[in-house]
């Protein structure tokens, strides 16, 4: 119980820091637009500090040497920084940093209170598995349409943009609808936007195939209690894999031996299988 709290606490603390940081920067930007400046707070638009903008502008940057409108150098470099973290530890950005992922997670606490047993297990497995690939369609659509139009086509449908700009009058009605839908679905499903629609999550998810640090399970010490499966917000069946390469893993560490797993050194974020060093068994009890 104590272990579980520590992971949760640490991750929640990091999530809150980044959520507040983004919120303050966006507020600062809104105030600057109104001619008010806050000391020590340099405002920027949400687009300017979102790494997704860096991804969608790649085509224009390569072909014309410029950025898509509303995108600047910051989002481009931020994209590179986030890619570095993803190569090291997978889509850790999604599980620890993304303010919209955090927002959905916080909404999920209400859903878990309402549906303590059924929460996050309401969609038939087969349908759910198919829907998980929808976000790659969204990613493709966003990349193509942005390349064609040189505009941020997704911002009109982006619930994240709607959440952080609802007071500005710049949010399209479709953005508000998307946000309302995500909030509603979050009462039944954990991180619905991340699972089914996030284009950036789709892209970062690919790094699960080749990341340096992976979630690894030691089958020798695993007691197959299934607690890791229950803890995973993305419904990944951790208990039957030795290395998690699922494209939906967000590296939240909720399944690990520091959190849900009751056996020490059995599930870890590691470069090699827990309990082994240089391919040889080590005695964890020593």
């Amino acid at each position, binding site marked *: 119980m104590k272990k579980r709290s520590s992971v949760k606490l640490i991750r929640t603390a*990091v999530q809150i820091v980044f959520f507040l940081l983004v919120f303050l920067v966006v507020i600062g930007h809104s105030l600057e637009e109104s001619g008010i400046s806050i000391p020590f707070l340099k405002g920027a638009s949400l687009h*300017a500090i979102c790494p997704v903008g860096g991804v969608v502008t790649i085509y224009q940057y390569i072909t014309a040497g410029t950025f898509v409108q509303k995108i*600047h150098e910051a989002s481009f470099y*931020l994209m590179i*920084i*986030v890619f570095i973290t993803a190569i090291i530890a997978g889509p850790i950005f999604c599980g620890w940093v993304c303010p919209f992922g955090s927002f959905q997670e916080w909404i999920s606490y209400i859903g878990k209170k309402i549906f303590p047993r059924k929460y996050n297990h309401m969609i038939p497995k087969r349908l759910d598995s198919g829907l998980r690939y929808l976000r790659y369609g969204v990613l493709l659509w966003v990349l193509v349409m942005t390349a064609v139009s040189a505009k941020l086509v997704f911002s009109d449908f982006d619930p994240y943009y709607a959440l952080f700009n609802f007071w500005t009058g710049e949010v399209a009605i479709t953005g508000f609808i998307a946000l309302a839908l995500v909030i509603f679905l979050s009462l039944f499903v954990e991180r619905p936007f991340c699972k089914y629609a996030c284009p950036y999550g789709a892209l970062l998810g690919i790094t699960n195939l080749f990341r340096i640090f992976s979630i690894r399970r030691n089958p020798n010490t695993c007691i197959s209690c299934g607690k890791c499966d229950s803890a995973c917000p993305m419904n990944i069946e951790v208990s039957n894999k030795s290395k998690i390469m699922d494209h939906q893993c967000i590296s939240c560490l909720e399944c690990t031996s520091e959190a849900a797993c009751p056996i020490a050194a059995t599930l870890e*974020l*590691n*470069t090699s299988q827990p309990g082994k060093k240089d391919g040889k068994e080590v005695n964890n009890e020593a």
Partner: protein
Amino acid sequence: MKLSAKRTALGLVVIILGGILMLMVSGLWITESTKIPVRISEGEFAGMADPGDIRGSYTFEDIENSFSVPATILAQAFALDTSDKDAKLYKAKDLETFYENLDIEGEVGTDSVRLFVALYLGMSYEAEETSLLPNPAVNILRDKGVLSDELFQSIKAKSVSPAAVANLSDDSTEGVSITHSSNLDDMLVKGKTTFANLLDWGMSKTQIEEIIGKPYGSKSQTVRDFALESGIEFSEFKTAMQEILDAF
């Protein structure tokens, strides 16, 4: 090698916030447009700033600096009130707000500024289908002699009167609809001329009020009726207004 939650958190914060800090220190953390448009790389206008790269965040001063189109001309073209706000301070994206109540299909926004600047400089520009220009902008382009007859007709067909929209606001806009320009060639102050016509032809609210000496009421009121109500000779207003219009 194992990564604990603490190390993961620490590493993540160091990489992301440290990375941002390094970018800031090295001057690479740029979160807004540099206000320097890209240069045209080929053709007749090679080397000149590209109007197509004007962003919504550009102020009229930025545009003046990059394209040598005076901010006052831009303000006049888009019928913006410069009595309380310097023309240089308006941003291209402000137009979307000012012209948000158009009741015809299309919009006056950043792309309209790109179109106007390009035409003003004698360049061609493929505007978005929905982009419109206010009548004063068309008048300025016509008077500058940069439009061929064919281009003038096509621009005129997609022009709107600014008289009924928000930035020129008074409480008389209700019930007044945006109309396509039809009398751009006839800028003569007559008995039937309304304040809306004057605005339509490119006079600013400030210019009108300087002549009549006080704020006008409804835009749909004729100048002559206003003069009669105020006990002033209509011809006094007419002459002063016509002088300004003739100077366009």
